[in-house]
């Protein structure tokens, strides 16, 4: 039986879709059978970020309304045999699916897959309610900004009210230099407010822009720091204890040391 994990945030644009794509790919890299479900109906992006948009024939609305079988709608990833995508519909909106239908859907998916990762839309309305309907674990993504943390706090409250206690936190787009200067919230400040366990921290990385535009998740890029962070998070999801990356900007000597495996 698989685990259903919802990636949510409240705030838009903090990196939920990117996280779903990279976590999913990271878990598939490790050999797990993974399905990614896009519930952002009307504003679908997960397919673009995975580079699978021109393979879409059926979508989640077709599945829940019985227009097609679940298997027909699942799209196998370009690169990994064990990674699948269930895309959202673009020509409908979030009222096209109900919470009951989502629960049925996630129950069917649990029988086939090790991990079911749900990409939640921004907001707290029907889209959010649908996304958390079948979920067992929740991950909250936020950026180190006051507005984002406010919204994340609201979301944590709603998750707890809906029985998803102990969500985990991912801090995205951290800039260590700004944190040092005092211009950006640091990890401890955020955990103090949100009071949930930290799952991982992802540094700001230009490679993300390149990778999402190309449809090639950054987790596949060995040189990218964001990629390494996502790979670590994937390992932690499976229960492995991985220490947090050293996020300080690397100097030449420390980079040399790292290359030679010393220190």
């Amino acid at each position, binding site marked *: 039986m698989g685990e259903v994990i919802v990636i949510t945030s409240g705030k838009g644009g903090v990196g939920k879709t990117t996280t779903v794509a990279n976590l999913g790919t990271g878990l598939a890299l490790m050999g797990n059978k993974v399905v990614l479900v896009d519930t952002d109906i*009307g*504003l*679908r992006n997960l397919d673009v970020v995975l580079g699978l*948009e*021109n*393979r*879409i*024939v*059926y979508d989640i609305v077709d599945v829940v309304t019985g*227009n*097609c079988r679940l*298997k*027909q709608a699942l799209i196998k990833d*370009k690169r990994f045999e064990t990674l699948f995508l269930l895309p959202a519909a*673009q*020509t409908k909106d979030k009222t096209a699916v109900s919470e009951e239908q989502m629960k049925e859907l996630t129950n069917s998916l649990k029988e086939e897959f090790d991990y079911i990762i749900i990409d939640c839309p921004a907001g707290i309305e029907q889209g959010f309610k649908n996304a958390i309907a079948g979920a067992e674990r929740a991950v909250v993504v936020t950026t180190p900004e006051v507005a984002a943390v406010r919204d994340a706090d609201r979301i944590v409250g709603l998750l707890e009210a809906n029985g998803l206690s102990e969500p985990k936190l991912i801090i995205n787009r951290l800039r260590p230099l700004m944190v040092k200067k005092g211009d950006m919230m640091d990890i401890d400040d955020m955990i103090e407010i949100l009071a949930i366990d930290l799952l991982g921290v992802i540094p700001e990385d230009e490679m993300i822009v390149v990778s999402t535009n190309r449809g090639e998740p950054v987790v596949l890029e060995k040189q990218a720091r964001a990629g390494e962070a996502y790979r670590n998070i994937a390992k932690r999801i499976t229960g492995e204890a991985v220490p947090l990356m050293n996020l300080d900007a690397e100097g030449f000597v420390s980079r040399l040391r790292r290359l030679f495996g010393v220190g």
Partner: protein
Amino acid sequence: MKNTSSAVYGFEDEGKVGEKHSRVNGGHGNVSKKKSTVVDGANTILLQRTLRSGQAVRYPGNVVIMGDVNPGAEVMAGGNIIVMGSLRGVAHAGAEGNEKAVVAAFRLKPTQLRIASHFTRAPDGDYPEPEYPEIAKIIDGMVIIENYHQGSNKAFNLEQSFR
């Protein structure tokens, strides 16, 4: 507008997008040996606007669009689809099974191109942007894309008729 989705998705296979459409440079269309009959004037609608992401047009006849079709938009026609602009979304011509339907555009760059029950997408990786108007049609059971020669009646498969 009639909703043709049930007629469209009625084929045996898993609905996977299999074929990749191939471009033939300067090719010529299938010339019918029979006497050319009048091409029926099936009902045609004209849209004088761009279709944005999430918008869909479904019509049992032909569809002509003076504007673009953006990625995320869908055009489904029982007949032909002509886009006087950039086609970047999904176009499905011959949606009710007519394999003689064609899709033509000033810039043919669809995310997915479908004619009758043939679903195709561009090959992976970068390939050159089309510089001239092109037309997609089924020849010998495969979706072929050719340059669209102005004024050529070879562009269209003759004797198509749908009411």
